[in-house]
């Protein structure tokens, strides 16, 4: 998947350059040449191995086309037919396939209603449709791509991940990833049970009011460490017993005021009451 999208980037980013230099070649000449080359290589390879590499490139073009149609039908009313944005929604040029994977893959997009922030809701599209829209958005301009599996495996260093999480994420998402409130109805969601690719996607693309933590700030390996930490705290129960939602003094204070003090009052009444 990711290889295909990288191919898209190459096509999109290299094609205008020769056009500026010579003016003779068609802007898409490089892309066309690349497609022809890939077709030829793939065809030759297919002859020898019966694999379907050649079809992949064709399928990729098909994917972009399908994605464009899906975008036009489902997203263009807010983001514009060319993805350049309207008054109702921001431009999606350059947000990359990863932003599409995060926003549509978590059900945040398409938005049901405008509000402080887009809510998680049941996913409206299949993964193939999401990939198709991602491929189309990625074909508009380069942007973050869906990362390879090795950065999502959660096999990094949980201790490093924990430190990075405390420095970069915990102030909004809570040190145990339980989420927290922001201003004017916005909030940082809890991170339990979130698919690693969506955790990665949120860091790379900075959805809504979340700041961007690009690969130049947190490297893919460091992002994997953070994913490892989140999986670690999810799989290992709190050492201190009931975590009461990991919300800290709010739930803990409520518990001790109601049950702790309530218990003391009950014992005091029992101590002083006369026996039957």
């Amino acid at each position, binding site marked *: 998947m990711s290889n295909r999208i990288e191919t898209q980037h190459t096509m999109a980013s290299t094609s205008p350059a020769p056009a500026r230099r010579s003016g003779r070649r068609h802007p898409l000449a490089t892309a066309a040449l690349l497609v022809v080359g890939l077709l030829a290589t793939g065809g030759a390879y297919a002859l020898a191995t019966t694999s379907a590499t050649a079809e992949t490139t064709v399928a990729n073009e098909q994917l972009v086309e399908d994605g464009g149609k899906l975008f036009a039908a489902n997203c263009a009313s807010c983001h514009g037919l060319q993805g350049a944005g309207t008054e109702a929604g921001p431009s999606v040029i350059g947000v990359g396939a990863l932003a599409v994977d995060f926003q549509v893959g978590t059900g945040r997009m398409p938005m049901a209603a405008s509000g402080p922030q887009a809510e998680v809701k049941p996913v409206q599209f299949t993964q193939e449709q999401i990939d198709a829209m991602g491929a189309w958005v990625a074909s508009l301009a380069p942007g973050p791509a869906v990362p390879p599996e090795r950065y999502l495996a959660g096999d990094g260093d949980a201790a490093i991940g924990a*430190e*990075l999480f405390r*420095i*970069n994420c915990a*102030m*909004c998402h809570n040190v145990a990833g339980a989420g*927290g409130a*922001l*201003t004017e109805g*916005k909030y*940082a969601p809890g991170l339990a049970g979130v698919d690693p690719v969506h955790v990665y996607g949120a860091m790379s693309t*900075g959805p*809504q*009011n*979340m*700041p*961007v*933590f*690009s690969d*130049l*700030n947190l490297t893919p390996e460091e992002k994997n460490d953070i994913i490892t930490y989140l999986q670690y705290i999810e799989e*290992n*129960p*709190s*050492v*201190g*017993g009931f975590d009461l939602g990991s919300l800290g003094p709010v739930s803990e204070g409520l518990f001790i005021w109601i049950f702790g003090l309530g218990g003391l009052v009950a014992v005091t009444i*029992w*101590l002083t009451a*006369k*026996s*039957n």
Partner: protein
Amino acid sequence: MMADDHDGTTSGEAAETAVEKHASSASPGVAVERADRIPNPGFPPERLRVTDTDPAKERAAERTVSGLFLLSVVGSVLAVVAYFAFPIVEGDPSTIRLNNLFLGLGITLGLLGIGIGAVHWSKALMHGHELVEERHGTRGSDETRAKAVEIFQAGNAESGFTRRSLVRNTLIGALVATPIPAIAIFRDLAPAEDPIALLKHTMWEEGVRLTRDPSGTPIKASEVTIGSAFHVIPEGLTELESHKLEEKAKAAVLLMRLPLDRLNEREDRQGWSYDGIVAYSKICTHVGCPVALYEQQTHHLLCPCHQSEFDVANHAEVIFGPAARPLPQLPITVDEEGYLVAKSDFTEPVGPSFWERAL
């Protein structure tokens, strides 16, 4: 008349033997006697408990109390068993949880069994009559008082405390001198340097690179993409050998890049940012919490402690909450290698107000 109870006999005499009694009239504790006082109505008729009337209930209560004490024994044994049955295995935090849980349950049972059993014993089985114990005077008898004076005088005569004035005075001198070392030791708890100067300066100075927290790697301006937020410490902080946390607590900075058309800069702060990249102190001007809840679309910074809100697009002015001043801005630029560097220290003290801070 020391006590009443419903048997009509005087009780409490046993309790009185330890205290000297005066044959004389009222004790000093209840000296005021009013002629027109309302007569003491006494106790309501005693309601007997079921354990007083029904021997079967009494035996049942006895069994309950001893059962609770036995439960306490079981709990204590359980705690010992749990300690060995659920050992804490290094590297497996879930074993701490099991160990603590069962050890705690055992000890709780051991203590609560004794406590609840004792209270139930006293409430259900022990003597249930109500009685009043009146106050008595605390003054000793004249013989006791004379005896005490005698003991003091004998002590003085035997030790010569007042006669041997050299011994007495040197002892007083020694007692006065003993706390002096403590003064010398605890004086060092105060900062050795002038704390006011320390509050006014941080590690930032001209040419110090902005580096990532916690790795300490320098940041290129080109790496700070629009919408990014970097948590920043000054270069060299990770190598500090002492006072690392104190320095970090003063020098922590949040680095953000805003679209240029959204950034509204003050006239006197032109050139403090670089291509939309701004750096602000992360220490709240209210009481010093780390302000780091950055919303990249509204460009608002929220302090999690007391909900102060700062507008980064507008030189971090306070738009909500108890903070009195904007967050101090760190003037930044880039060096010849493209790394972000500070132009100077903060131009005002970071963090909350203090007495000597010029406003």
